[in-house]
């Protein structure tokens, strides 16, 4: 990373299509979800979170998934992240089906392809800002020095380089989410998953974060964002609407 580097340069742009372009082959899809069902057993009654959801996200695309509470948005995100397994249907990430993969294989898939940004940040509070960004790269097997170097670059680019040695607890909400984004980018993931990334932020902090996502997208980063907030969804190039566990509108028309 040079001094003139910009956040648009830091995404994994290999095999990336131009924003808005139609994918030429199936492997151009970063995410492909086909007829996915997921039901959670609760004490009172089963909750059918997904009821045959379908979704495809091209490489380099910035997709927002919108829908009311309980429509299955976060469940779908968890399935994409390999944090949950569908009861039926198939999830394919970067051309690789998640079906039949065990917990270990799913974890390795996450290292290679997934960066996650949570609504409530989920930072490792006992570690410094820098260590939070270094951690995923080290987990993925990168050498610590390399991981630290990239982490510093990311923090600089996200405007919190001066906070590297501090505890996450001293950062503002916007800064914490920027840190979470830096962590999500640490392994140059195929796709960044963001679950209500502005939900815990004030309007200014929220706008900062959305601006970051826009710039990442410009750099070719694939982003799948879940929100119930229309202005947030408007930052994406495509809006997918969900209802009752299904994709109601895939936003392609």
């Amino acid at each position, binding site marked *: 990373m040079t001094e003139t580097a910009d956040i648009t340069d830091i995404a994994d742009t290999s095999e990336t299509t131009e924003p808005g372009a139609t994918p030429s082959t199936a492997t151009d899809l970063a995410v492909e979800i086909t007829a996915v069902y997921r039901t959670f057993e609760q004490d009172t009654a089963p909750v059918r979170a997904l009821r045959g959801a379908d979704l495809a996200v091209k490489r380099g695309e910035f997709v927002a998934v919108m829908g009311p509470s309980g429509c299955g948005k976060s469940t779908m995100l968890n399935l994409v992240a390999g944090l949950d397994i569908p009861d039926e249907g198939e999830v394919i990430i970067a051309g690789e089906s998640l079906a039949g993969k065990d917990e270990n294989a799913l974890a390795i898939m996450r*290292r290679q392809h997934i960066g996650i940004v949570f609504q409530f940040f989920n930072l*490792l509070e006992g570690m410094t800002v820098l*260590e939070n960004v270094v*951690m995923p790269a080290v987990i993925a097997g990168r050498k*610590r020095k390399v991981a630290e170097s990239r982490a510093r670059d990311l923090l600089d680019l996200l405007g919190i380089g001066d906070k590297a040695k501090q505890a996450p607890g001293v950062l503002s909400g916007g800064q914490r989410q920027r840190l979470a984004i830096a962590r999500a980018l640490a392994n140059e993931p195929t796709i960044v998953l963001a679950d209500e990334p502005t939900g815990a932020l004030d309007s200014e902090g929220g706008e900062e974060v959305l601006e970051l996502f826009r710039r990442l997208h410009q750099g070719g980063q694939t982003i799948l964002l879940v929100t119930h907030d229309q202005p947030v969804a408007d930052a994406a190039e495509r809006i997918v609407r969900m209802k009752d566990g299904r994709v109601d509108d895939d936003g392609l028309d």
Partner: protein
Amino acid sequence: MAVNLWPWVRGEWRRGWTSLLGIVVLITIGGGITIAAVGGARRADTALDRRIEYEGWTANATIGSLVTLEEMDGAVDRLLPLIAEVPGVRGAAALTWAGVGIEIDGDPGNLFSGALGTSIGESPTETIVIGRAADQANPHEVTINEEAAAQAGVRVGDTIVLRSYASDQVDEFYEGNGAPDNGPRVEAEVVGIFRTLEDITTQPEARLTLTSGYIERYGDRVVSCTCGIVANIPLDELDQAAAEIADVVSEAQMVVGTITDEQSTILDQAVGVEVGALLVAALVAGVASIVVMLQALARQSAGRRSDEASLAAIGATRADRVAASMAVLAPALALGAIGAGVVAVGLSPLFPRGIARRAEVDPGWRFDAPVVLGGAMVLLAVAAAGALWFTWRSARRVAPTTITPILKLLAARPTTTLGGSLALDPTGDGRRVTAAGVIAAVAFAIAGITGVAVIEQSVDDTLSSPEAVGQPWDLELQAAPADPEAVVAATAEEPIDAFAFDLRIGGTDFEITGEDGTWLVQPMTFDNVVGTIGPYITDGGGSIDEGDVVLGEALARRVGADVGSEITFTPGPTKFTVTGIGRLSDGDRADEFAYVTADGMERLGRGQQPDLNSAMVRLGADTGADVTERLADLGWKPALLPAKVATLEQIGTVPRLLAVGLAVLGVGAVVHTLLVALARRRRDLAVVRALGFVPGQARAAIGWQGVLTAAAGAIVGIPVGVVIGRVIWKQVVGGVGALDIVSVPWLLLVLIAVGAVAFCAVCGWVVGRRAARLRPSAVLRSE
């Protein structure tokens, strides 16, 4: 609580019941061991007194050695009622000594036995440990003590032959010179085996108790003397009652002795070592328990900090929050204190150990109310104070901190990094107190175990080192042989390293006076028959001339003598020059002897020939077993340690029990911390799973938490334990006059460190299964 926080309290009980249960277990185990050790020390300390009270054999009036049997005639019958009337006397009985002994392998054993005759009130008794008391009317029933049973190989129900001196063998009876016994030989059944105070010492003697029926039937045909009265007096009235008895019996020239003058003094010293060991154990266990308990409470309090803001938001003041938190903990503290009392009672049969256990009349369950109830109350108070402190502190706002500087040292792998984070901050609140608490608890446990290892090794090395105990010989003659000259000749012919006689001026204690004081001592010299046996010299040289003396280290300190000093023996006065200082067993200690030359002994005796005190043999390095067997046939027995040094054996299994207790506490602390970290930092575990940790890595991180906690504990605990062990051992060994041998079992300490780390790794691995099963999506959604 001004604000009703009971719903929150009930919620905490439901949510954190496993952690609260952990606190109950830790308080129960730690407190239970502590209370049990204190109770054990108290039980050991009082065992002897309780036994004495039980047997009631507290004072005896016996005929003086200058009084003839004729002069004594009828005195006992006349004095018995008078003694029984002395205030404080619960009962009294006439005592007959007789020249009767058990036949062992065709030879008469120790021809000396006793029988109780006429009694008034609560007669003194003996403690039958196997079988029953003899029917006093039956002349053919006897009871024997444990030592006699061991020597004769006799059990209850066996028939033995009683050999005796005839009534005209009074001189043989008194002199015990091994003359042939001409009295009646009577068959009798051993109906019971009893335990005397002598059985409790390290040097017991065989005892045989005849029935009054035997005395009535055979008394006029065997040498016997009804020349003593035994009185049963409570210990707290013993001194005054004994003084009055002395007045009563003075006209019969009888001498009054009390139990506190005799064996109990020796036993008190031996028991004192065990009591000291138990009190040290109680202290260590107590401190360890408090550390473990407080760090568990710290974890518990810290874990609730996330609720503080919510509680404050609904209007709860800090006092309300503290009160609510205390309400959460109160049942755990109370149950822990009760559990500790139950554990203490449950462990009570384990105490006392060693000699004190043999002194214990009923070594079973014991509920020592002051110790158990008092201990439980103290435990509750300490736990409540600790809980209050941590709860009050946790109700404050604190600035976030990180622990990265330390983690960087562990940053080779992400599992070690996360394991280190968990170890350094189990509750995830950025405070060091919780991690410091558990590391301190583990360090304390390891320090205690290390200290125990050092002390045990030191005891073993000291007791097996002739130089340490001042005993450069292997075998002793502990009783005069029937044919001394033959034994000497046969011994001298064996291929041994050294053979010597210990000579002293019979029964005479000399005052030895130096620059700083005076002390009583029985000067000794060795007449070497083969090779040389003498004191270990640590400073100066040996005694060569008739005016030379070598002093024990403690004796030299007491009288203020050094090499070259002049000291004076009285009676005399006779001046000697100190040529050396060292260690040599005088039978009691190894550092209070005064060793002179044979000529020097003549100077001290002023014509009186020294008496043979004992004889010693040192075997050669390559002496065969056949030689040892032949010497055993001649009457040589393994040398007895100096009595004071032998008390070290009374430390017994107490240190090991302490080590086990500390290990349990340490493991409990670690497991509790692992479980707490798993619960309180499940979000972090879920996050790293989302970042790419495979389940095994999450499990390994918990394992690393255990490893790093144990490693930190070992790094601190082992050096501290070595120092503690050395300091305690130095005090103990100095007290018994043995050499302070530096014995640090390094290999064992390495094994302790490796074992602690490995065991904690296994604990982490087992507990970590829950981390591996954790569903990150569910955790992150609920968070």
